């Protein structure tokens, strides 16, 4: 149902303000199917904001943004079924167990609970499935958030600093997941602080500065 030849991510003239301050001032770029693009830039440059607009969490104040041909404002629901967004904060329920968190997500997404068990195994957390998230380290929470992402098969990955707080195995896991999804015809946009963990998988990088792509 996507318009033929549409890019995985298409951003044209994106503007976004917070109060009176314009954080994004005309961001324009494309990401095609099969690409893994890194987004770099100084702190406060608006990298996370770009991801959040793409993930339909924020509306653009100017410009047009679409995922696989679906406009993020007009077809937000279609975008949500195709996008896997990993925020900087895990956004989990501390007083629920890992398994309960995933089962809740499965219920909300309309996938069976067996999917939750599979996802848990894929990220290597099945032995901690019945522990409360409150006791998890930052790295474990990141893995659980990734598991949640895997409950449906996302076409476009939007990852905000996915490697922070991960050990070598964790970094490898993230790269495996990204490669798998992109190999199937997907695409990924990754906000990065440093290039090293992602160097093996990146196709290219973009740099955000002064609210625009440099």
């Amino acid at each position: 149902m996507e318009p033929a030849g549409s890019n995985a991510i298409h951003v044209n003239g994106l503007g976004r303000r917070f109060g009176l301050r314009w954080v994004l001032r005309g961001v324009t770029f494309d990401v095609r199917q099969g690409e893994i693009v890194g987004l770099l830039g100084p702190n406060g440059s608006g990298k996370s904001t770009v991801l959040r607009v793409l993930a339909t969490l924020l509306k653009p104040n100017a410009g047009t943004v679409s995922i696989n041909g679906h406009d993020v404002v007009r077809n937000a629901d279609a975008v949500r079924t195709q996008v896997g967004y990993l925020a900087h904060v895990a956004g989990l329920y501390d007083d629920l167990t890992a398994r309960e968190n995933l089962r809740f997500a499965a219920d909300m997404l309309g996938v069976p609970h067996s999917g939750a068990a599979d996802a848990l195994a894929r990220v290597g957390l099945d032995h901690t499935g019945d522990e409360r998230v409150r006791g998890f380290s930052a790295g474990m929470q990141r893995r659980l958030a990734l598991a949640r992402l895997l409950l449906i098969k996302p076409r476009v990955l939007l990852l905000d600093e996915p490697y922070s707080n991960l050990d070598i195995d964790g970094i490898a896991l993230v790269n495996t997941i990204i490669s798998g999804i992109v190999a199937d015809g997907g695409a990924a946009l990754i906000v990065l602080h440093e290039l090293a963990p992602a160097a093996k998988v990146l196709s290219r990088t973009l740099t955000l500065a002064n609210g625009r792509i440099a």
Partner: protein
Amino acid sequence: MAWRDNWRRVGAIARKDLTTELRAKAGFNSVASLGVTILVLLGLALGPDAAALRNAAVGAVWLATLFSSVLAFNRSYQVELETGALEPLLLYPGPRWTVFAGKLAGNLAFVSLMVAIVVPVGIVLFGVRIVPEWPAILMVLALGVFGVTVLGTFYAAMASRSRAREVLLPLLLFPMLVPVLLAATMATRALLGLDVMNDPSAWIRLLLGFDVIFLVATLLAFEHVIEA
């Protein structure tokens, strides 16, 4: 089947809210304790004349319920706000009213449980005489709690995410609950036989109408207030 999907989401959210609330250390107990504390203070401030207290009982119980339920409503969004879980919640497909209905169900259970403690304490402290019409009084209580919780859940979606959440929620909510407060207290007083000229059925119909109107209105308006 879209209907079934939506109701499954409502149930998932309600169950999740209640589970996290039961497991949280300080949750329900402190809110219920606050309700009782307010009753005690009201008793001290309005008493010690037994007749005066008996006359003030209905109003006192409703006020104690109202003031402590404000805490409950903000708390129901606190679950998501503390860990940044609101954004993932908004990214699931499906209509927003399911989030509202789920939170509403969770809050109804919470407030009902609290009322189940506050009302008996109020009966004892204020010397209320039990009457044969107590099932009707329970119904008035249920209708009133429903109205309070519908609007409380709605306004807390905004207040809990703004500055000065502690003052903004009561400021928005309390004037809106004037009809509920009047109808619930007047109907209860009539049923208790405290006001001779008072007919409870009109008040009960007002409560019912209020509940229906605002349930529909808040369900429709919720999608506009829950977005980031």
